[in-house]
């Protein structure tokens, strides 16, 4: 069961209220997305920790109903 782009956006924003989020549906199939997320919550964190924050925001859906989400995380000064 794929996830809707709006739902991905909403879940990330709920966890990271300051986030600037850009999501692209790569294949138009609602199953392969790329997201660029900029948030102060990433400041001082390793890349692995930054991505873990996003995966936590998605509440375990990543790797399950959300098959592919290419992530780019950016810090915010």
């Amino acid at each position, binding site marked *: 069961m794929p996830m809707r782009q709006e739902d991905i956006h909403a879940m990330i924003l709920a966890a990271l209220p300051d986030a600037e989020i850009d999501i692209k549906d790569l294949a138009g199939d609602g199953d392969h997305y790329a997201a660029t997320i900029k948030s102060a919550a990433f400041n001082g964190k390793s*890349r*692995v920790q930054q*991505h*873990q924050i996003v*995966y936590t925001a998605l509440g*375990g859906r*990543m*790797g*399950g109903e959300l098959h*592919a989400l*290419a*992530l*780019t995380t950016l810090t915010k000064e």
Partner: protein
Amino acid sequence: MTRNVHAELEATINASPIVLFMKGDAEMPQCGFSAVVVQILKLLDKPFTAVNVLLDPEIRQGIKDYSNWPTIPQLYVTGEFVGGCDIVREMYQTGELRQIMESKGL
């Protein structure tokens, strides 16, 4: 006796300097994301141990729990989790991945 997947994974990760948990094997990856990481390791010309998670559902789930990371592939260098496909690609492009490996004498 129940299987101790955590201990098995720890042993695998520490048995070789570069370990890639992937779908399929290095010669024939079964997933595009795994294929990207294999390609990068080959471009860097670093020998690695590939673990095909598709052969063992307990390892497939176990490594996700072990690393607190929901997806495959996963790259470990000298026992440390480096990241999945996106991070490995980014670190390859910036030269950071080669730097980390060479700083560890690989």
